[in-house]
């Protein structure tokens, strides 16, 4: 699901504190939010869910075009439930990559969800099945909405409404897209192959703000294009990940540590 929301969105205050400090900032603490504040959070969560759900249609269509059955597309969406990884898997499968290359590409893109969990865990403070459920709903969108809220109560409200809202709408619209993709026939006639590239660019775009990321992206793109003619499908994508891991060690540390972050959600009016 997309990091399609721009960084000029609402407050990022709590998010920054929880990321950069040893302890999560609980100073905004346990103040009871007003009904108006709660409504604003739910509204934001739902607008993010609708926007994300809509491009579930494009994922469903692309998955079908790449050769996944309806059942495979739905199992992937329900169980993996992480848009970037899902797009990566069908991208590698569609280009004829080996199973291992597809698994590794999707997995590398899933690592960031672990880092989101580290930030969300102390804020949500859950136990038992609720904690496992929260882990499954930990994605770009739910993290971005939750960590943009000023109090713990609103963090939780934002997390659950966004996580559940995206889960329901994303999976529903992936189903619609997969059925539609089947009916479309030749994918090239509809430009669906070009749509896949544009989908990845849309996921990448909000991340380009930092210089280290822009440099890494440029090098990764060059490495990938050079490797296409000389390596099996799927390898160029994995080589790009290797490039990033090396650069992560050698690039000078920015003054303000640049951490894995979802782009902040934009409240749509």
């Amino acid at each position, binding site marked *: 699901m997309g990091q*399609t929301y721009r960084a000029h969105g609402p407050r990022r205050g709590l998010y920054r504190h929880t990321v950069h400090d040893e302890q999560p900032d609980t100073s905004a603490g346990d103040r009871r939010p007003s009904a108006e504040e709660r409504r604003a959070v739910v509204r934001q969560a739902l607008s993010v869910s609708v926007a994300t759900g*809509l*491009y579930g249609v494009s994922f469903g269509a692309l998955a079908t075009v790449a*050769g*996944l059955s309806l059942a*495979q597309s739905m*199992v*992937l969406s329900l*169980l*993996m439930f992480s848009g970037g*990884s899902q797009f*990566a*898997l069908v991208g590698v499968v569609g280009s004829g990559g080996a*199973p291992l290359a597809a*698994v590794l590409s*999707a*997995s590398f893109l*899933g690592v*960031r969800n672990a*880092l*989101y*969990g*580290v930030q*969300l*865990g102390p804020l949500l403070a*859950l136990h038992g099945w609720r904690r496992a459920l929260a*882990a*499954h709903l*930990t994605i770009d969108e739910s993290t971005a909405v939750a960590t943009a809220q000023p109090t713990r109560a609103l963090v939780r409200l934002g997390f659950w409404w966004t996580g559940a809202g995206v889960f329901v709408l994303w999976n529903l619209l992936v189903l619609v897209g997969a059925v539609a993709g089947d009916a479309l026939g030749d994918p090239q006639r509809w*430009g669906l*192959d*070009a*749509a*896949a*590239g*544009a*989908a*990845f*660019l*849309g996921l*990448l775009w909000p*991340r380009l703000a930092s210089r280290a*990321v822009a440099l*890494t*992206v440029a090098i*990764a*793109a060059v*490495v*990938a294009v050079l490797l*296409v003619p*000389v*390596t099996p*499908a799927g390898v*160029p994508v994995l080589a*790009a990940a290797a490039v990033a*891991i090396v650069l*992560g060690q050698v690039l000078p540390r920015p003054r303000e*540590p640049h*951490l*894995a972050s979802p782009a902040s959600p934009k409240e749509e009016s």
Partner: protein
Amino acid sequence: MTDLELWITVLVASVVCLGFKLAGHYLPEHWLGDPRVARTANLTTAALLAALVVVQTVANGQEVVVDARLPALGAAAVALALRAPFIVVVVLAAGVAAGLRALGG
């Protein structure tokens, strides 16, 4: 890929991704809290997405091909620069590629 290989790919990748999500919520924070880990994960995400853009746009099997996908990606970039919503960007790219192919043949 055979149907069985595809099922295994889907299930293994899904379980690994779910495992990462659970690790974030259940592992001790200091295991993943190192800024270097976070920074490398951030760069890796961006690099993977960049490589996927390249492969989807210019690769045709093991050939590098310039075709209708490239101007379509250019249109997508312009739309993103103009802050168009994700779905508009994707549909626009598909429309440009489909239109160019319809004109070209």
